[in-house]
């Protein structure tokens, strides 16, 4: 792996979690605050790597609320970060920061201050910039619904439309494999375990053939937490042109919370499965502004769904969204 660009290097020093961090790395909002302050002062980010940085950090203590000692300690952990990063970067992992070409602009546009500071990924990063259909749903779903997810993903693949999935078990996995096995491309946005999943037997060939990109805002060996899952969901929606919920539980779990958050922020138009196989809870999303996924669609899925979205925007009243 080549050297990181300086701004990304600074971001890793300040924000990367390594699984053993005696000094708490900056949170998203702390980082945003620091970068904002530096910009106001006219200091380039690279300045943070200069040897006599301490005075500048002291100056920023009050406006940013970030103790100079903590920032200094984070900025000095370069050896630790390099040692930690080397293993996985030599196994094909890349890291992208806000200013890197691999970083999809759509994340800035949609998520703004919530755009993840760092992306860790394996596989073809170009896939992040190609839009696609997000197919999401809970881990535990009926076989019929998994089959539906797979079938829709198959169809996306046949029509050269990318699939974006959360990479978890259940619907996510069915959609991912549904696209890949049909020769399509897929982006898996992971909430945990990036390294393990990227080296898994089934996915290796797809990563190698540039059909798959696995990406995560969390470090490659991080474990699963509900918070991580929500952060991951943001990215799934933000990267997609359109999203489809296969199944959710009303008021419960990540799928519901993620879909609701998406509707609130209007990151991407949302469809939801309805009909005899779909759980009744799905209907609750309709009340929040999702559209019913048509039971029969002829022709190109992407164009048909987009035209449904546009006609709704022209013909219908504003969606009932509570923010």
């Amino acid at each position: 792996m080549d050297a990181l660009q300086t701004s990304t290097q600074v971001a890793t020093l300040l924000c990367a979690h390594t699984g053993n961090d005696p000094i708490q790395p900056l949170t998203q909002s702390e980082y945003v605050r620091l970068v904002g302050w530096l910009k106001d002062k006219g200091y380039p980010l690279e300045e943070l790597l200069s040897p006599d940085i301490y005075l500048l950090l002291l100056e920023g203590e009050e406006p940013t609320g970030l103790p100079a000692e903590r920032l200094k300690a984070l900025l000095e952990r370069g050896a630790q970060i390099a040692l930690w990063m080397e293993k996985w970067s030599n196994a094909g992992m890349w890291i992208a920061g806000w200013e890197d070409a691999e970083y999809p602009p759509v994340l800035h546009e949609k998520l703004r201050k919530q755009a993840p500071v760092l992306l860790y990924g394996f596989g073809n990063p170009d896939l992040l910039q190609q839009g696609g259909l997000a197919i999401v749903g809970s881990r535990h779903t009926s076989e019929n619904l998994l089959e539906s997810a797979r079938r829709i993903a198959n169809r996306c693949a046949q029509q050269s439309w990318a699939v974006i999935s959360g990479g978890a078990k259940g619907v996510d996995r069915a959609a991912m494999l549904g696209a890949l096995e049909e020769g399509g491309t897929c982006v898996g946005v992971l909430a945990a375990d990036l390294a393990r999943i990227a080296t898994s037997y089934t996915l290796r060939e797809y990563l190698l053939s540039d059909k798959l990109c696995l990406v995560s805002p969390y470090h490659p060996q991080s474990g699963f937490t509900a918070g991580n899952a929500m952060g991951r969901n943001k990215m799934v929606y933000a990267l997609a042109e359109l999203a489809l919920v296969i199944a959710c539980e009303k008021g419960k779990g990540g799928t519901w919370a993620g879909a609701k958050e998406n509707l609130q922020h209007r990151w991407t138009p949302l469809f939801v499965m309805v009909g005899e196989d779909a759980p009744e809870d799905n209907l609750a999303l309709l009340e929040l502004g999702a559209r019913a996924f048509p039971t029969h669609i002829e022709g190109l899925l992407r164009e048909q769904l987009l035209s449904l979205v546009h006609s709704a925007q022209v013909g219908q009243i504003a969606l009932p969204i509570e923010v």
Partner: protein
Amino acid sequence: MLVQRTGWGKSIVYFIAARLLREQNGNKGLSLLISPLLSLMRNQIEMAERMGIHAETIHSANTERWDAVEKQLLGDEIDLLLISPERLANADFYGRVLQQVAPRILMLIVDEAHCISDWGHDFRPDYRRIARVLRLLPRNIPVLATTATANNRVVEDIRQQLGEELHIHRGALARRSLRLQNILLPSQAERLAWLAAHLDTLPGSGIIYTLTVADAERVTRWLQTKGFDVHPYHADLENPLREELEQKLLHNQVKALVATVALGMGFDKPDLGFVVHFQRPGSVVHYYQQIGRAGRSLDSAIIVLLGGEEDDEVINYFIRTAFPPQAHTEAILRALRQSPEGLSIVEMERKVNLSRQQIDKVLRLLSSETPSPIVQTGSRFVLAPVPYSIDVERIQKLTALRRAEQEQMQQYMQSAECLMLFLQRALDDPHAEPCGKCAVCIGNPIVSPMVDEQTVREAVHFLRRSEIPLEPRKMWPSREGLSICRGQGTIPESLRAEEGRALCLWGDAGWGALVKRGKYNHGFYSDELVEGIVDMVKRWNPQPVPQWVTCVPSLRHPHLVPDFARRLAESLGLPFVPCVHKVRETRPQKEMQNSFHQVHNLDGAFEVHSWEGMAKPVFLVDDVVDSGWTLTVIAVLLRQAGSGAVFPIALAKQVLRGG
């Protein structure tokens, strides 16, 4: 990067830098020194202490100190931590210790930085990893790389790997105190005789370098029989012993250590009086490094290169085996492709017919690739999602370079110009000039090249008495898949072979050549070898005394070994009973690369026909022993059939190892 001759004081540079950085940082944080060999570290820690710098080391051989050092690390009491590149790569050490202190690393120092280069002779895959880490370092962490032996090619390679920001400080390499001389003495016996005749005339204490472990042992034994206080030093010795030996040499309590490259880089004895090479090293870089240990604080030190007939054979072997054959790499990758869960090394041994060493070599090569097609998680290796094809061209280029280096050393051996000048030019030293001190410059030998015939005869005799113990195998390679082990992991003592003897090492200067001729040219082992073994048995005197002789059967050469064993039995005055029979053809055992496959290949291939006198102890004879499994398996079958103790005898043991 600092390129300065040995003895220039490179370590002082990083001691002071480490100290200054820590002081600037409010006495917090430490510098990390990555250094390849333990011998170097012990010296450096002592030197640092003398300068008032608190240096510590953590390595595989000082586990008893780990807790104390870790406590000091966490208490921020250490200026400089020294670790080996292997330790840096060690997952457990990384998680438990390094990650705790890593946030506070103020500077990284890479000693013997030529190891980063592919082109350097001491290329180590773990140094590749260091280069990758350095490339990922932000610029607020200074890096200091040091070496004494880097020619232009190596420097360029390091620059390419570390980046254009590398500043290079380069000094003259000539060492004024060294007086060089080359002496060509083809046979080992002549060289042994030379050492015996002239070791006393060499000043102070020194090092005698050999190419292989076996040679270090043998030269030592010879010199000891001649009354010299010398000891062997190589990688097979336990660390505490090695440390003790280094101390003895440091304090001039021995005349010399007879060492392989294991007594290596940076061993710092300012008054080392001489360095003699019993065999010619593979490259000028290597040679210069080793002689650079002499005479650092002396006005004069003597450097003798003895060249002999076996040099090229040994070096060719090292070159040939430096990289794993493509087929080995492919076999491992294929096995990994077929294993969704990945493979541990033990599982690889079962899946592919490769030895542990061969597997290690492949894994090291693959891990050194950037990016690497394999990655280790816990004890298992899995394939990484990166495209990979074996870089045949790189391997060919490096092999060609090794050949060129070998050739350069051959030229050096014959050099008609100043020897120091030759070395400096070979190392691209811009300050090269004639030394005025070497045997070529003064036109006379510094040490007499003469050997007397009587001593040579003694040396020949000595070489013919250099039998090698054959240690009995105690464990089966696996409980499963082998019928002979009957579900047990350990070979019960009652079924084990006794310690045996091999007359010589395959191809060595004593009996080796005769055995080789017998096997490949004549298809007949001469009576001289029978006599050699009879003498050996007299010296050995195994107890309880064997009462009969049997041998390892072969379907491919049905007469070679039995015929020899019969003549041996006659000379020993014992009955020869060929009661071991081969009931199934096996593949040549030398094609079986690891223990599991070796035993599997033999499993069920032999039968023992009992006879009335078999309860007595027995000699089991074979010609060339490699892994020792054939002797082990037949010993078990003999014991099961009711024989007494089994004493293996072999004509030669197959072994060739550096380190």
